[in-house]
């Protein structure tokens, strides 16, 4: 059963709807005691990374999240929280990954926020992307991105520069795009995560 980390950042109705459609059981994690009853976790997140980190710190869950041994998937800002730092709010984050989260530079040719369906290139092989073609499109909405890093980048997107569309280290996974809004392949990814 999937435990969704609840810390007051963003709406999770679309995520739980996707899990309902797929038939996966889930529950909510509000405190450290809640963690034990789940075999994997999703850290959702929409909005401002610095503000999201403050809210997460208020739950007291930070040390327990950093120590998680079970599969854990961060989505969008939930993934950015797993990096070391974000320019959004000049905030230190969970530091599960050493990468930084940076703002897209203003550019004539690349609009910000990066909005829409973008190809995702699978740099590494991983069960998270099982049965998903390389360079498939996923739905993105974000103004901040996680640096590309050969060690931790699982899949990348090129939008003014190559950056991490997905990261992976041991039991920790993150996706910048919204699998709950990314059509059939997004649902495949969530299904893959539920079996990792």
């Amino acid at each position, binding site marked *: 059963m999937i435990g969704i980390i609840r810390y007051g950042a963003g*709406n999770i*109705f*679309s995520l739980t*709807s*996707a899990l*309902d*459609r797929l038939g996966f059981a889930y529950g909510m994690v509000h405190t450290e005691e809640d963690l034990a009853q789940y075999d994997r976790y999703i850290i959702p997140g*929409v*909005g*401002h990374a610095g503000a999201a980190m403050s809210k997460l710190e208020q739950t007291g869950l930070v040390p327990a999240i950093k120590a998680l041994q079970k599969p854990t998937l961060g989505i969008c800002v939930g993934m950015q929280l797993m990096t070391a730092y974000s320019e959004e709010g000049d905030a230190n984050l969970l530091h599960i990954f050493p990468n930084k989260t940076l703002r897209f530079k*203003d550019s004539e040719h690349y*609009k*910000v*926020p*990066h*909005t*829409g*369906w*973008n*190809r995702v*290139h699978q*740099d590494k092989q991983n069960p998270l992307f099982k049965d998903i073609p390389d*360079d498939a*499109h996923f*739905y993105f*909405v*974000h*103004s901040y991105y996680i640096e590309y890093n050969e060690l931790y980048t699982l899949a*990348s*997107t*090129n*939008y003014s520069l*190559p950056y991490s569309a997905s990261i992976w280290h041991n039991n920790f996974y993150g996706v910048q795009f*919204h699998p*709950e*809004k*990314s*059509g*059939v392949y*997004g*649902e495949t990814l969530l299904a893959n995560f539920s079996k990792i």
Partner: protein
Amino acid sequence: MEQLHNTTFPTSGLAKRIVPCLDVKDGRTVKGVNFVDLRDAGDPVELAWNYSQQGADELVFLDITATHERRKTMVELVKSVARQINIPFTIGGGINEIADADALLNAGADKISINSAAVRNPKLIDELAKAFGVQFVIVAVDTRHIDDRNIVHLNGGRIATELETLSWIKEAESRGAGEILLTSMDHDGTKAGFDNTLLKTVNNAVHIPVIASGGAGSMQHFVDVFEQTNVDAALAASVFHYGEILIPDLKDVLRANKIEVR
């Protein structure tokens, strides 16, 4: 590293979006819909699901309910759509205050679209962007040519404002609009193609995505709007609802013209 990037990463990859628009009143679609396999052509959720299966990239629901029950029916609709649909969707119509937007966000809407309310109270854009993020806020602009100028109109194009279209759009962007939905009322309903001249001017002048609307009549019109203006998305209603253009065919034509689609 440079060479690695050139060979390893796709050079582009952000798809142009095809966006069917559904008019909804009291929770039911109002414009005629002519799909063969629909059990209930007035059910916006079934219609939306059908479009998502066809490959639509995003959906817009325009609520034209005029009763005081509106917010409640919209919230119910949004919840039903969010439960069933695996692509993003926008709700527009009758959003006048933060509380309206908050209720729709919590029901699962990805974005809201504001039009007249933003013209009457431009600060609403700032407030919504601050409360929910720019990605949540689409400013819809209805425009009409008057004496060689493009003028913002309200109430479906019936009421002219004092605002020049491009300057209003730039103001909306600076206040926190995350996207612009630009409808040419001169082209709307003509099926003669999008207003590519204006769309190109607007698209070049802003740094947020632009959705073209008004005038789609053929698949070539979609090719033209993407090739000539480089807008991010194109919206249409009747050509999709009446089955005159099927989305898989449209995607094939765009692909054949080297336009990135999903």
